[in-house]
């Protein structure tokens, strides 16, 4: 028997056609699509500019495709991205899991554990070879042959390479999987790196953040499900739809920045009035993410709205960016007082030496002239 399509599965669970089409519209909206995008350099329908075309495409896909198998591997992570995902709103994780995707392996969310879960992963990788989406959470330690993260007696590098070999797409969720994140921070004892430093033979889509915005993750997954391809990416392999603007560009406190109204401490009058947090170290101007637009917890708030400067958690090396509460313009590294003293003394010594040499030369010339 052919594999059950998503639509068939929904029908079996009692969804009416109206409810199904409603779901399709919601998915199209969650992708932020008012018209069909170019995917792999082509559009999908002749009338690609109408919103109906998008819903039609979503409906056609859900009618023809089975659920998308997902394998989720956690490496050096705090599980924060998984935690965030469980709080996704549109589409919610519940909607995704029940209707559109099938999470076949997830160390935290799976009911099974240990060898049974590992066996199941092997089975799924074989059964859905070339079809499943591999999601990685956490960085990969390379130091000392990768022994700093061993799961089921195998290093994480091994596990990653094996799982990536048969994946249709690889998604790194969170800053750790994308760029190494906190384990990558100086002095990086485990030599932690992001997935794209290891998997180079296929595109790795990065959804950085600490944690990644859950709706960005779910929408990206749905995009892959609908279009069968990854969305358009920026130079750091992040989907442009969600990482196209800086936090600063979309920040509701931006007018205060323009007007030069800044909070100088977390409890001064300016902070209470909601003035700009630039002087308190906000990294919004160089951080690309959708926090200021999509926000968190179903659009409730985001860090700047809660009165805290942006940490820049969707950018590489954000942990080593010179201190969270130090202004963005301030240098990341500055010379120590001893070094300043040493170069000043060295400069003065060289200057004095040359002056003395010149004086001697002058005296010598005078003597010769006499």
């Amino acid at each position: 028997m052919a594999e059950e399509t998503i639509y068939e599965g929904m029908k079996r669970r009692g969804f009416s056609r109206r409810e199904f089409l409603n779901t399709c519209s919601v998915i199209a909206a969650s992708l932020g699509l008012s018209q069909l995008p170019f995917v792999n350099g082509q559009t999908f329908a002749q009338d690609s500019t109408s919103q109906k075309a998008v819903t039609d495409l979503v409906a056609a896909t859900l009618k023809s495709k089975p659920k998308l198998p997902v394998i989720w591997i956690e490496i050096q992570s705090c599980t924060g991205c998984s935690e965030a995902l469980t709080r996704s709103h549109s589409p919610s994780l519940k909607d995704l899991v029940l209707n559109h995707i099938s999470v076949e392996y997830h160390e935290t969310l799976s009911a099974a554990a240990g060898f049974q879960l590992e066996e199941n992963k092997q089975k799924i990788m074989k059964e859905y070879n070339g079809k499943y989406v591999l999601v990685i959470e956490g960085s990969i330690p390379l130091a000392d042959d990768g022994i700093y993260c061993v799961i089921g007696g195998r290093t994480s590098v091994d596990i990653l390479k094996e799982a990536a070999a048969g994946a249709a797409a690889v998604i790194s969720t969170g800053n750790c999987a994308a760029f190494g994140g906190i384990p990558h921070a100086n002095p990086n004892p485990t030599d932690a790196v992001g997935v794209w430093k290891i998997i180079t033979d296929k595109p790795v889509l990065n959804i950085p953040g600490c944690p990644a915005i859950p709706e960005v993750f779910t929408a990206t997954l749905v995009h892959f499900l609908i279009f069968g391809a990854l969305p358009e990416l920026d130079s750091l392999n992040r989907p442009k739809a969600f990482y196209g603007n800086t936090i600063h560009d979309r920040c509701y406190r931006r007018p205060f920045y323009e007007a030069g109204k800044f909070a100088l401490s977390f409890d001064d009058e300016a902070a209470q009035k909601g003035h700009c947090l630039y002087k308190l170290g906000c990294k919004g101007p160089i951080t690309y993410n959708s926090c200021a637009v999509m926000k968190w917890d179903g659009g409730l708030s985001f860090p700047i709205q809660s009165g805290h400067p942006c940490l820049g958690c969707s950018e590489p090396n954000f942990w080593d960016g010179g201190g969270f509460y130090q202004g963005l313009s301030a240098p990341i590294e500055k010379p120590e007082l001893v070094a300043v003293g040493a170069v000043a003394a060295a400069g003065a010594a060289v200057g004095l030496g040359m002056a003395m040499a010149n004086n001697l030369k002058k005296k010598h010339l005078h003597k010769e002239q006499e």
Partner: protein
Amino acid sequence: MDWNAILEFARGPLFKVALLVFIGGMFYRLVRVISLGWSKDKVDSKGSKVKGVLISYMKGFFILPFFPWVKNTFTKNPITFLAGGIFHLGLFLIIFLGTPHMLVWKSLIGIGWYTLPLPIVDWFAAVTIVSMIILLINRFVNPVLKLISGPAEKFNWLVVFIPMVTGYMMTHHLFFRYEALFSFHMLSVDFLLIWIPFSRISHFMFYFFSKSIHGAQFGKRAVTP
């Protein structure tokens, strides 16, 4: 291209090295100039040299800039006087009273201060950039300046102009991504820091020495100088 990585380098190790070269280089220049020495008074001065110095600073900072027709500098070359004056004033305001720049000072010396609103600093930046362009054109057009301008003068102009213009573009998000412009700005500032001690841009430090020496000379009351 990962501009944030370049920016990290320009704000990090490169800035550190550039600042050390600047400090070492300026001390070298300072010692060299002081070691040149100055002539001893052969006759005791009746006037106060300190008073002369003070009057010289008062005149230079608070009186003559507001009565420029008194000195030939204005009547003979008003462009140099006006554009040069505006350029220097704008530069000081931007460096000390622009918020991002104050934060650099704060991180280096530990003291912060209130800053001007962005639109005001922004206007000063625009006026400063325009005055720099006028000064360059004047350098090419004025027959005397043309004669005394070598490649070093033009290069020095460029080295100061690039940080100015990249800073302005960055504030207005013009043409490039913010972090790319921030990287250009920081790289050019790092180069400027390294270049200052070995160029005539170091005049900002020597200006005060020459002003003091001249003031002391003016304050002297003696038969022989």
